[in-house]
């Protein structure tokens, strides 16, 4: 059952001659409990889709449904409880002068979440953050710890859907592995649905079942990740993207073995 349903979504920036379609007639749907990927190069409009879903930018669509609710114009309080976002750079996403604890308590207060303290502790446990870090500021944390704080904050409202905007591309590979594992664990634990934007085909191949490939605001094709990596891509652009990722990506021997 689709929990996110988007039909013919467009986002335009600027007016008149300067008007630029960042997202141009995009349609896809995401099923409950799945991880759906949006892959593409910078400027292809993948992050703008996430922003249009949350209402951070205005989008026009025939259908924009989240959990069977029409969110084209108005989003209720319930929407913001259900849908949370995790950004690329946790350092910019966190308040520089708030402690870890306050980062978690502030949204809880705004959204009127009951028993916030108990939830805060729960969220910290879920992301594997030690209580010793509660009173630290973002600059006193490592990159991975910061992203864990941002994820804990997203979990405070008990969301069903997480919109992940390049959540590990600012992290070291060893830390990326930890955070990606954390996302897998949280999905299993809370039955979360992920819509994940990434430019890294390796990450998408690891995390997602299905993915849409974007170029210049349009979805070039939507396909199963299995098909994507086993040469099932139909469109030229998708093939080019895979070739580029492989060319300076993995061990040639591994690729040869996989294609055999």
């Amino acid at each position, binding site marked *: 059952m689709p929990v996110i349903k988007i039909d013919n979504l467009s986002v335009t920036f600027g007016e008149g001659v300067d008007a630029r379609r960042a997202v141009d007639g995009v349609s896809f749907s995401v099923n409950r409990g799945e991880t759906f990927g949006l892959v593409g190069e910078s400027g292809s409009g993948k992050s703008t889709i996430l922003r249009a879903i949350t209402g951070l930018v205005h989008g026009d669509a025939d259908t924009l449904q989240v959990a069977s609710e029409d969110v084209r114009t108005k989003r209720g309080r319930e929407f913001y409880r259900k849908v949370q976002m995790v950004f690329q750079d946790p350092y910019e996403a966190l308040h520089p002068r708030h402690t870890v604890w306050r980062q978690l308590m502030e949204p809880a207060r705004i959204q009127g979440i009951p028993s916030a303290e108990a939830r805060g502790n729960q969220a910290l446990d879920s992301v594997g953050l030690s209580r010793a870090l509660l009173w630290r500021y973002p600059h006193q944390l490592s990159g991975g710890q910061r992203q864990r704080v941002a994820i804990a904050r997203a979990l405070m409202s008990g969301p069903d859907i997480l919109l992940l905007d390049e959540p590990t591309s600012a992290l070291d*590979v060893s830390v990326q*592995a930890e955070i990606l594992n954390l996302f*897998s664990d949280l999905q299993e634990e809370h039955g979360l649905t992920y819509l994940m934007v990434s430019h890294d085909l*390796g990450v998408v*191949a690891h995390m997602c079942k299905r993915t849409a490939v974007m170029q210049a605001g349009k979805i070039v094709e939507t396909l199963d990740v299995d098909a994507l990596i086993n040469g099932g891509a139909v469109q030229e652009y998708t093939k080019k993207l895979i070739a*580029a990722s492989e060319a*300076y990506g993995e*061990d040639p021997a591994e690729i040869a073995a*996989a294609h055999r």
Partner: protein
Amino acid sequence: MSETLLSVKDLRISFNGAAGPFDAVRGVSFDLGREKLGIVGESGSGKSMTGRAIMRLTPPSALVKAEHIQLGDVDILHASEKTMYGIRGRRIGLIMQDPKYSLNPVVTVGEQIAEAYRIHTRATSSQAREKAAAMLGAVQIRDPERVYRMYPHEMSGGMGQRIMIAMMLVSEPEILIADEATSALDVTVRLEILNLLNELVEKRGLGLIFISHDLNLVRRFCDRVLIMYRGRVVETLNASELGQATHPYTKGLLEAMPRIHTSRKRLPVLKRDEAW
């Protein structure tokens, strides 16, 4: 390996922090020839600081010690500031991650390249102009005349990085240090920039120090790789032999990377050893 362009022996960099001295680099040694040498490590491994020390651009609070840092006939450790002016940008070029922060936002890119050329040579402004336009062509920018008049904010990331490369190469340096120079670029653009760097290194016989966090990329692109962890080189390998790495840190890093063609339920997480 061909002749040695640069030799670094037992480089140590430390900072006096509030919590006592901190060693950012703990005894790094390597020789650079006319080759592509990769320095790989995660954040805080000291790879960028090593690059900075070669140009003597470490922050004032850093304490730099070494047996030697030798660039041809110049002893970088003890050279005068005046000598260093003749080296930075002239004999050693540096390209950083984000061209947006490296370029002057209020000067056209063509003028910036021309300015770099005039600083290092006694060229007239019309010579510099010509040279800058030619350099834009050399880094495969279409329509160099038009791009010459553009400002940094009008460029894409890939184009900005080409401008940086053009600016660094205009003085014909012996060594180029690329510090995460392609990390902010899209895969297809990255490929173009790497091909360009590769061609320039081969054509001009440069020594390239390619600093990156991306092991896979370095494995494909470089000739030799130093793997750094917490200020030390834990392993030096020919790039083609990275698959036979023996150090647990290198192996752990390779394992932790998501792969397109191998599906795994969980990614192996690196276990760090205090002794590394």
